[in-house]
């Protein structure tokens, strides 16, 4: 009986170890950004290896940002590369020049150079840890309520430089703050005026107008772009999803696609839209 129990536990343990795993491909020089939220009890060490016990609600926000490149080792048999990464050797790797200003860039460094080649800085990250909260009060005024948005963010490198120059804090604003910021400086795109996400200007454009432009070449371009955005938003491009969307009364879906198109139209070269969930 005991032996059978041991076997059962061993089988259960091995199945647990072998199942449900997500193994990310071994990366080099990856930037990781994310959050962890635990509701319950947590006992362990924090990011600075200090022991701690948390009961109730604990939230971690973290970023791992590479500043110096890692390279694959060449110490395998016959000079083959091993699946092992090591810091780039500053002594051996030559220096290169980049940008209009002729910046001295060491290949070991991960840097960004702006379009005109006049600004150089480290890898840029702009992230928001936004949240919202609200409450009601019954004392005095039973209808009293309040809600607010919190937008915590950080920016590094060229993003931080440009944000400081252009006052781009609105990008990380939350809730009504963002809507006010967008309304204050509305986006303009080929005659399209949108005061904020999802709120199409009554005198402006709809998805139907955007896709139904008279010029056939421009119409084809917009439809192709719409298909890409639709795919990025998680819908298959081989289905007539856009046509169905136009025929339906799904205003929310149409606004989502139109907003995605505006993002795509404004994007610099190389923009990738990844649908999270």
């Amino acid at each position, binding site marked *: 009986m005991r032996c059978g129990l041991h076997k059962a536990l061993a089988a*259960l343990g091995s*199945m*647990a170890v072998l*199942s*449900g*795993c*997500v193994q*990310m491909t*071994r*990366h080099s*020089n*990856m*930037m*990781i*950004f994310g959050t*962890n939220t635990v509701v*319950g009890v*947590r*006992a*362990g060490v924090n990011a600075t290896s200090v022991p701690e016990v948390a009961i109730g609600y604990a939230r971690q926000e973290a970023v*791992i940002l*590479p500043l110096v490149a890692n390279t694959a080792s060449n110490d395998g048999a016959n000079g083959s590369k091993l699946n092992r990464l*090591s810091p780039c050797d500053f002594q051996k790797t030559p220096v290169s020049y980049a940008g209009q200003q002729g910046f001295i860039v060491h290949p070991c460094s*991960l840097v*960004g150079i*702006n379009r005109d080649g006049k*600004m150089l800085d480290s*890898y*840029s*990250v*702009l992230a928001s840890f*936004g949240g919202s909260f609200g409450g009601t009060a019954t004392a005095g005024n039973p209808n009293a309520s309040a809600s607010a948005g919190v937008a915590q963010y950080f920016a590094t490198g*060229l*993003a931080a430089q*440009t*944000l400081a120059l*252009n006052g*781009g804090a609105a*990008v990380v604003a*939350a*809730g009504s703050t*963002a809507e006010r*910021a*967008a309304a204050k400086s509305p*986006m303009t795109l080929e005659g399209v005026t949108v005061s904020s*996400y*999802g709120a199409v200007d009554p005198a402006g454009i709809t998805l139907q107008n955007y896709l139904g432009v008279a010029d056939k070449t421009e119409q084809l371009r917009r439809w192709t772009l719409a298909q890409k955005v639709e795919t*990025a938003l998680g819908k298959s491009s081989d289905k007539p999803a856009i046509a169905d969307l136009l025929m339906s009364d799904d205003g*929310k879906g149409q606004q989502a696609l139109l*907003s995605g198109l*505006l*993002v795509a*139209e*404004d994007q*610099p070269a190389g*923009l*990738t839209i*990844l*649908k*999270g969930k």
Partner: protein
Amino acid sequence: MAVLLSGCSTVDVGSQRSSQLYLGLVRVIMPEPHKGLAAVDVKALGLGWDQGVWVGGRHGNWVIADPAECQLLIVIRTPAQAANAARVLRSMEGKQACVADYTKH
């Protein structure tokens, strides 16, 4: 049953290694990676290990980006941020930008 009730994730970043173990109800969402951008969303109810043991509910979402492909990474969590991101992207002048969109439609 054990297959359904367990999960773990491992991320290697050079010499940095992060392993997480989940026991209980686990849901892992990984959208299809685009170029150098990937994302992982894990929701779990039970217990697990991540630099310490935890018991209860846990929700983590992580964005993994390759600096070579994404010199600028923007994480947006609300539709309003998405609209504003478009405006700021225009002024960023970044050659390679990636957007992780967590807004719900």
